[in-house]
Every structure is written in C-alpha cells, then in structure tokens.
C-alpha cells in the first residue's frame, strides 16, 4: 500500500481524441439507444444543440479508444489488472460534445484508500479524467473507481 499511496496525485500524459459522428452512432446503437439527438443533426438542433451530441456515457469511448489503455495504466500504478473490478463510475457534465470536437483528456489519480473486508484487503483507486475541447472549454469530468482485490 505504501508504494501505491505514493501514486496519489500522479498525472498521466494528456491525449487527444477526435469525436466522429459515426462513432457516436455506433456507441448509441450498441447500447440500443435510438434517441435521434445522437444520429440526426436537424433533430438535435431543434432540441437546442449545436449538432448531434454524444450520449451520457460516451466518456468511456474517449478514454478507452484515446487513452493509453487500461492495462498500461494499471502497469503504471503497479496494480495487477486481473485482480481489478470496476466499482463506481461518475460523470460530471459541463458542455455538449459534438462530432468534430477535438478532446484533450488528462487523467490523474485522485484518491486511494484501503479497506479490510471479510474477503481480505482491497485497494480502492479513483482515476479522474478531465475532458477539454478545442476551444479550451471543460466539457466532462469522469471519475472511475476501481478495486484491487489483494
């Protein structure tokens, strides 16, 4: 835990992700969410958006496709990826995300704590990612809490 605790505040290199309209459609379709604001720009504009928008959980797509990869993150933290479970996910929304947006994402280790349970000790790690668009506007913050079963 001592070594892991030292990772608190660690910031990973920023990465970029260009949002494509087809990726938004693919993502919404995989969920089975047929809301027209994800596929039809006219309908989206009628609803008050600039263009088609990304669904509420689209941050995962930016992070998984654009980021360094979960296994690399875990290696960097010195955590065994096989013993990891996704415990919680949180999104905080600031601005809409549209096709053509160039998102810059920065991930840092925002919290680490250990819990002793009946099934043994567990480390809880929160990775917070801030998403900023090409106009330097913060659009989204995600907080992924993972558990390492020791």
């Amino acid at each position, binding site marked *: 835990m001592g070594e892991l605790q030292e990772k608190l505040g660690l910031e990973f290199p920023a990465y970029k992700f260009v949002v494509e309209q087809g990726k938004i459609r693919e993502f919404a379709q995989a969920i089975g969410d047929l809301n027209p604001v994800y596929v039809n720009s006219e309908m989206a504009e009628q609803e008050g958006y600039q263009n088609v928008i990304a669904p509420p959980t689209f941050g995962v797509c930016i992070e998984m496709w654009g980021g360094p990869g*979960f296994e690399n993150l875990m290696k960097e933290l010195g955590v065994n990826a096989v013993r990891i479970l996704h415990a919680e996910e949180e999104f905080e929304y600031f601005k809409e995300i549209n096709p053509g947006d160039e998102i810059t994402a920065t991930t840092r280790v925002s919290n680490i704590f250990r819990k002793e349970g009946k099934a043994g000790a567990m480390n809880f790690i929160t990775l917070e990612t801030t998403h900023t668009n090409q106009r330097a506007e913060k659009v989204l913050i995600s907080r992924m809490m993972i558990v390492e079963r020791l």
Partner: protein
Amino acid sequence: MPAELYWENVNVGDEMPVLTKEPITELQLVKYAGASGDFNPIHTVDAIGKKAGFGGVIAHGMLVMGFMGQAITNWVPNKYLKKFKTRFVAVTKPQDIITVSGKVIKKEEDIITCEIMAKDQKGEIKTTGQFEFTLPKKS
C-alpha cells in the same frame, strides 16, 4: 423525444419512466466492445469468462450504465443533466433483461437529485446510482 419538462412538474417522490431493455445478447457485448474500445475478453470470449468463474462472458458494467443513461435521457433532455454516478453491484450476463427505474429524492437550490437502479428479470439489483439535473422554470 422527451416531452417538455419543467421544474414545477417534478417533485420529491416522483418516479421516472421505467425502461425495460431487450435481453442482452453476446452479439451486443461484441458490438459494445468495439464501440466503447473496452476489449477486456471477459466480455466477449466465453472461455475467459468461464476461467474467471462466471460460467461465461459477463456484460460491461458501462453497458448497463449506458442503459441507465438511456432511461434518464428518455425523460430529462441531455442538456439538463449535470451529474450521473453508478455503483456496480452484481454482474450482468447474456439473456438478462434489464429494467431501469428511479425516483426523485431531493429538490433544492435549482438541482433535482434522483436515485436510479438497474435490476434483472429476477429482481436482482445490478447497478445503483444517482443523477442530478436542472430544469427550466415556467415562471
């Protein structure tokens, strides 16, 4: 398309419209893996899911969160959603039928807070969570 919703029409104790999804299929997990970029084979390769002790593949937690996001935005337009948080409680498997429900637990300082949960056909809770949103006021 959600009907126009106003601050005055939503009150503590109100239930959000329930969303019941089609049964999850292995094919949906393959599609979601490609769409999200989460290629952890526990979601797509049966042998890996068996080895992990789940008897086969399990759904991405984020897919279930996606269902919850769908239920929310069927009711509250995306532009009003401020926060959305989930806790993954139990694993979801192919053939599970997920139902999303929730209700308003707080309404103060321009923010409405709801609790939300996803259950399967047997009533087992898969995911719990909360979301916060604002709404335009009539007056």
